[in-house]
């Protein structure tokens, strides 16, 4: 396996683990963690393609990865704020109990 293939296999695994966590967990903090893993998988891909792919413009992949990390951080901040907002009302952060809206 070439290094690029190894990196892609790793990032795909990371993405799959994250997606499983985001869909299957009932604790909203763990869902947030899953989401972070999925975003990280995307950043890993960018770095891998930048390092091992055909030479393109100098730093595109790295710049994209840095921006993606910043966006992931912002997303976590908003997510945690919303988790706290839910906690204020139902005194826990379990998603199965956040079921007032349905129909």
């Amino acid at each position, binding site marked *: 396996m070439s290094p690029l293939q190894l990196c892609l296999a790793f*990032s795909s695994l990371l993405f799959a683990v994250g997606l499983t966590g985001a869909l299957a967990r009932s604790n909203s903090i763990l869902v947030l963690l899953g*989401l972070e893993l999925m*975003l990280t998988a*995307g950043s890993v891909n960018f770095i891998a393609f930048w390092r091992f792919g055909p030479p393109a413009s100098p730093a595109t992949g790295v710049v994209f990865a840095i921006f993606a990390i910043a*966006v992931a951080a912002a997303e976590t901040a908003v997510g945690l704020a919303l988790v706290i907002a839910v906690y204020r009302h139902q005194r826990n952060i379990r998603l199965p109990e956040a079921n007032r809206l349905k*129909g």
Partner: protein
Amino acid sequence: MSPDYAGLFRALGPEAALVVGALAVLGLDLTLFRRHSLGERLRLALWVGSLAVLAAGVHVWRGGAPGPVFGAVLMLDPLAVATRFGVLVLTLLTLGVARSSTAQRQPAEYVALILFAATGLILMAAAQQLLLVFLALELASLSLYVIAGFDRNRPETAEAALKYFLFGGIAAAFLLFGFSLIYGVTGSIELPQIAAQIAVQGANPLLLVALAMVLVAFGFKTAAAPFHLWAPDVYQGAPAPSAALVASASKLAGFTLFTRLLWPGLGAAAGSTASFNAGPGWLPAVAVIAAASLLLGNLVALAQTNLRRLLAYSAIAHSGAMLLGVMAAGRAGPAPLFYYASTYGLATVGAFGVICAAERGGRCEAISDLAGLYKRSPFLAGCLAVFILSLAGIPPLAGFFGKFTVFAAALRLGGVAAPAGSLAILAIALSAVALYYYLIVLKQALVAKPTAGAQPIKVAPATALALFAAAGLIVWFGLFPAELLGLF
């Protein structure tokens, strides 16, 4: 080639105006108006916010030369300019609606976040490079998550915002992963180079995975069928002005963004819908999503008793129809899609505006809470009639002509027997179903007697103006569709 910073500065004038406006709203509220009453602070925030939106509109109007900006990072074609204008109009109407919003404890923050969301949306309208696409989408989404959860007194609001955020976050991760694969396959993040590379390479498996992931994000942003789960909850739980912005401006910008991404960018991987067993590509996938949205949206809407959930499921159905417009955009151009999406946005902002205004006079959740609206406020009932009939597609309102142009463009793709044509036939048949649930709403508002003790509703002047403008625009564009279609 030296970077053209002056051109970039001119092209980003509207965004600058909105950001400066948002900061001015926050600054004024924290300094000069700190000790004033909530009502005065809300009025000031809305005034400053509206001025910022108007300034941004002037910048869009005067805009720079059309064409690519700063290399090819931004594309100022007629579609971008029209979408920017449409988003700004819808934002202005949302601000008018927000005047009536109840339980507003932080008016300045609310208005500032609406302006930040609008900034992201107008960037989405012109972005032509994957990094900028991603950042604009996230700027808009993060602001929308927060304003969707802005009413801290209601548990439903927090829950709706959390669900919106979780689905949106997963969609964003899919989009990022898809973009990384596109970058890997083509070696570029700029749409023109990507298009050239794909035309040379043809479709390979990695590219198809990337397409699937981009389509997941597209489906989320436009609330299309398998990815629609957040929409009913957000429409029901969020404060009415937030729901109006999520349902209208965000949808318009999302459709523009993904049409630009799919046709000029990934058009070579479109595949074909000439027959039912065509090769791989994104067109067949979009066709499946469109069919699922049309069926699910219209049929589930029949069972709804909550007014906002009904609007949400009808929004899913409208997304299906707009996806037909996306499929047809390759040959017919974006004009039918833009006409449909913008007039749909006007009608949705209006409908949520009526809900917001009616909430001041009492509960407005179930469809039966509208009973006797024609006596409680004839103005609101009249506006609601225009909006709902436009959503249902009754001539001479704009909703009818939007459906007509989109379906005609889809039928022209390959006749009635081709997939796009049969989808158009399906959509026309389901419009009859849609008429039923829209008329149930109107029956309550215009025919049913008011419940005992229902008070007349007073509408704030700003909201009345916004609703009147939205209704007027719907009638105007319905009578003179060339005003919009001629822009392209």
